[in-house]
């Protein structure tokens, strides 16, 4: 199926006389086309993508759907879900639906920023490690393994305790504790590409190191990068929620984690206000599950052995 996807580009370049220089064949283009096609025909991936799109839209439209500051205290405290307050109110009279909608902005933004930054550092370290080898590899691998081994959440707590509180701190701390896993995975993948002929050819033709790393090696491991990115975003959303829940994040902001922190602090469990706790937790789980489904699908597409064989 990957062949049928790439032929149109080839015919248009050949049939159009104004194009003088034909596009250089980008390694991995074939596999990549098959990959996109695979994603769009995979039920798990489609479901995951749909959920993500819905959440992104809700986050974008939060000011329209729930105007006003969601943290403002209201007169109607601890109301169960009703027509006026679809998800009920907190013990301070805040609307839970508004809190959840506004919370998705911070949670999704931080999650994706952390995911992208952690994957980027992981790419940089992993590919550089594999490309240069020798002493640089030893050093970077050592660094990666140390960060992998130090227990993440305690490190997160210690860092958050000493850094001045604020949204930037949350992101920095999460990236520091989150990049190592992706670096390790990407290094081993880049290592197997490093010994391929096209990399050797690029080295012989005198291409610059960064160009070989990011234009030759990186595109060939796009699916692995994609799956580490998804993993990092899941980590980012979950770890931010954990940090905020412990009260070590940015307690002034509204996110799913801070919603749960305040719910727990105000004793929502003991008073039986289950509706205050439910939405933010479920939102985290649904987004993480959607990302995990896409990840699972990426795995299936790139590793045919995991696909369930169709019988008949």
């Amino acid at each position: 199926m990957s062949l049928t996807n790439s032929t149109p580009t080839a015919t248009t370049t050949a049939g159009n006389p104004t194009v003088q220089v034909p596009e250089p064949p980008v390694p991995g283009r074939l596999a990549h086309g098959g990959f996109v096609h695979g994603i769009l025909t995979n039920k798990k991936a489609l479901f995951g993508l749909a959920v993500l799109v819905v959440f992104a839209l809700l986050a974008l439209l939060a000011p329209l759907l729930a105007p006003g500051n969601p943290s403002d205290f209201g007169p109607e405290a601890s109301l169960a879900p009703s027509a006026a307050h679809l998800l009920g109110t907190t013990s301070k009279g805040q609307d839970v639906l508004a809190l959840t909608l506004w919370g998705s902005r911070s949670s999704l933004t931080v999650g994706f920023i952390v995911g992208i930054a952690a994957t980027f550092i992981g790419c940089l370290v992993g590919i550089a490690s594999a490309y240069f080898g020798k002493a640089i590899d030893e050093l970077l691998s050592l660094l990666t393994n140390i960060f992998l081994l130090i227990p993440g959440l305690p490190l997160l707590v210690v860092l958050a305790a000493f850094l001045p509180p604020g949204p930037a701190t949350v992101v920095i701390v999460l990236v520091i504790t989150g990049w190592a896993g992706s670096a390790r995975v990407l290094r081993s993948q880049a290592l197997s590409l490093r010994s391929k002929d096209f990399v050797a050819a690029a080295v012989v033709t005198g291409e610059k190191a960064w160009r070989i790393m990011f234009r030759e090696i990186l595109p060939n491991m796009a699916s692995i990068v994609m799956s580490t990115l998804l993993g990092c975003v899941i980590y980012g959303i979950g770890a931010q929620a954990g940090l905020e829940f412990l009260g070590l994040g940015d307690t002034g902001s509204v996110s799913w984690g801070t919603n749960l922190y305040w719910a727990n602090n105000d004793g929502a469990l003991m008073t039986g206000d289950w509706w205050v706790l439910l939405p933010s937790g479920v939102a985290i789980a649904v987004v993480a599950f959607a990302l995990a489904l896409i990840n699972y699908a990426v795995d299936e597409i790139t590793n045919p052995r995991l696909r369930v064989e169709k019988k008949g």
Partner: protein
Amino acid sequence: MVFLLRRLGFYVIAFWACITLNFFLPRLMPGDPVSRMFSQVQSQMRPDQVDALRRLFGLDDRPLWEQYLAYIGNIFRGDMGISLSRFPSPVSEVIGSQIGWTLLLGGTSLVIAVILGNFLGVLAAWRRGKFLDSVFPPLLIFVGSFPYFWLAMAALYLFGITLGWLPLSHAFSTGLSASFSFEYIGDVAAHLILPALTIVLVSIGGWMLGMRNTMIATTAEDYITMARAKGLRPARIMFQYAARNAMLPSVTSFGMSLGFVVGGALLTETVFAYPGIGYQLLTSVQALDYPLTQGIFLTITAAVLAANFLVDIIYVRLDPRVRVS
């Protein structure tokens, strides 16, 4: 042997990196967290204790390298300073009195999750596309998507508050003293069920999926076909031939997952007010008790590193290829 020595060297470097991080964090951070801590506690301390604390956090005039060497020396003598929130107990004493609970909680839930998860993984891979294989993985991924602390709160609400089956918090009932009596052990077990359950629920999916995927690769090997051709019993092929070989990655991830379990225990302990060092770590941060915070961080790291070294030793026993190369 060379392999183990290399690993040991790595763990020593990792631990050194942690000590160094611990040393520099309070000294280089903006906003001067240490003075904040001092202004809070100075009134209740003797002058020589204030002095010792100043030295611990580098507020004396010695050059940095001298402070650094003294700091490392202190750590190896087990001297991590005096706890401020539990004044005047030394940090090591506070940690020693609580680490047992974390080991109990983390250990129990890890063992249950690993054994059950791997077993389910083996079965799922063996019966590809059947009930276990099609229902459990997505279900467990979904459960695993919930944050640790949220599942803990849900379990607490459901089984503790609404149904009233299990105790809400702490590791044993107040008024009960530690003994080897049936009553005490039963009480501790009852308090352990909910926190352990949440950790098991969140982590079991990863074990199952990991095992399932390696098992699928293993069952495609020639020696499995050979075993089938010989007419061996399916159970024997599944456990003695396939699962034994598919287990190696699980052993590696066992070491890696220890850190996650510690983190999970931290959140779970917080929700259940379980008196382990995870809960203590958080309270120490809230109380600006930096010596205790750092001491707990170092202890947790040392424990995880030591456990990983043990896993390495086991790995060498299990995989002869490591011994040769």
